[in-house]
């Protein structure tokens, strides 16, 4: 079990209760700007699935903090990430969320033209300006790496340690990296993707994902599959705790019917279990025997967050065209139920009645660690 702190921002209110953050932390543009600067634009941020960039010139643009980031592959197929900002006079290079560039990225304003490594390869009159360095005036790069089949970016000049941040989150939750490796997430394919546009602050979504005090109330289907959630204790309350499927439940599906082909690396003790991990600040992962559900959050403003959720299966399952709907529908419903709850909270964050925030009951006390983590970055 995770010990909850007594001090810090999450002061104890009484024997059972800890204080949450104040309402302003969920609506104040200055708070959001600080979070962008110190959290999203400073650490590692999970941007897209590697298969979103199938070949040289395939691109995605994503919002990372306050920055638009352009992701692509070089002519040799290597991942590349750039600030989506023309070095001439700042026009956004790509305005589409995704696509395939033919030869190069060309700014639509004055046609400064960059290759897939970001180098300035052409511009009107460039040959008569030999002092304009093609590397020097190339697109500004961000750090990029691939892990679990996803493309992670870091906008800091010097990249944060991946090991002590992202990988440490796995260790904290699952106890050992091997407990994740058993799922071989990188080998799985996106069987289904659903994008949710949520009118709520990103922290409300993280907090929601961390606790299960709400499960019996808003997640009837999930609680049917995982009856222990009715006690209000999330899998994330513990270390390496898998919530067991209920009796008669054959798979992690909307009606408990049998799921798809089991992931081959799993030992029998993980066979009928559900695990959940939060990789701060913007990734949630659910592990079940036959698939992995991978959420990436994109905070767009104090009161808006886009969540891209992928359902990952064995490549042969995806290739077979198997019906994924019963397994997708379970967590899609859970997501809609959760995001509706978050959207219900957002308007209250600016209420006078919530200026000092609310309280965390004991099964939510581990959320205080998240609040302390945010505060340690922003304050």
């Amino acid at each position, binding site marked *: 079990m995770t010990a909850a702190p007594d001090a810090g921002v999450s002061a104890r209110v009484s024997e059972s209760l800890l204080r949450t953050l104040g309402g302003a932390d969920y609506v104040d543009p200055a708070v959001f700007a600080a979070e962008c600067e110190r959290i999203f634009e400073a650490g590692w941020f999970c941007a897209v699935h590697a298969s979103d960039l199938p070949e040289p010139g395939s691109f995605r643009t994503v919002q990372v903090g306050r920055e638009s980031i352009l992701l692509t592959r070089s002519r040799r197929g290597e991942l590349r990430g750039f600030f989506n900002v023309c070095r001439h006079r700042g026009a956004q290079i790509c305005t589409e969320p995704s696509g395939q560039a033919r*030869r*190069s990225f*060309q700014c639509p304003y004055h*046609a400064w*033209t960059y290759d897939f490594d970001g180098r300035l*390869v*052409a*511009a*009107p*009159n*460039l*040959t*008569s300006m*030999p002092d304009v360095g093609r590397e020097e005036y190339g697109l500004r790069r961000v750090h990029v790496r691939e892990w679990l089949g996803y493309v992670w970016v870091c906008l800091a000049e010097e990249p944060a340690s991946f090991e002590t941040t992202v990988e440490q989150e796995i260790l904290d939750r699952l106890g050992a990296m091997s407990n994740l490796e058993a799922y071989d997430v990188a080998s799985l394919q996106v069987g289904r993707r659903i994008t949710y546009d949520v009118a709520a602050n990103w922290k409300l979504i993280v907090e929601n994902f961390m606790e299960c005090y709400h499960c019996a109330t808003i997640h009837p289907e999930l609680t049917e599959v995982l009856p222990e959630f009715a006690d209000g204790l999330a899998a994330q309350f513990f270390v390496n705790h898998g919530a067991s499927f209920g009796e008669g439940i054959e798979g992690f599906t909307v009606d408990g019917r049998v799921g798809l082909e089991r992931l081959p690396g799993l030992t029998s003790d993980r066979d009928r279990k559900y695990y959940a991990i939060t990789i701060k600040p913007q990734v949630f992962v659910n592990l079940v025997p036959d698939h992995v559900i991978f959420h990436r959050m994109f905070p767009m403003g104090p009161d808006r967050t886009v969540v891209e959720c992928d359902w990952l299966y064995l490549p042969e399952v995806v290739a077979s065209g198997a019906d994924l709907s019963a397994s997708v529908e379970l967590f899609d419903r859970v997501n809609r139920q959760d995001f509706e709850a978050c959207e219900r909270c957002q308007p209250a964050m600016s209420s006078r009645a919530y200026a000092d925030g609310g309280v965390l009951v004991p099964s939510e006390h581990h959320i205080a660690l998240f609040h302390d983590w945010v505060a340690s970055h922003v304050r």
Partner: protein
Amino acid sequence: MIRICSTDDVVPGEGLRITSTVPPIAVFRTEDDEFFALDDTCTHQDASLADGWLEGCRVECPLHASTFDLRTGAVDEPPARLPVRAHEVEVRDGEVFVTLSTAVPHLPPGVTLGAS
């Protein structure tokens, strides 16, 4: 005929801008190891065709994608409307020699002979 560069100076599949001539020319080396030379400056705007995209026997202008025939300099479609000049190339002992065309070059607006 003038010596322009060594064959090794040009990467297969790419072009090299040569500024020792007036106007500058571009030497192209195809993936099949054939050499061609054209005026380097696109006839539409001041862009270097050596920075363009070589495919088969054509080079695509890096700015607005008109393509030019490496053998004749003919342009396929707008925005460029006029051809560039093609120059005769000879490769001997690893050196590239060019006989410059005597035709009048079609330079884009604002670019004059002698501008480097």
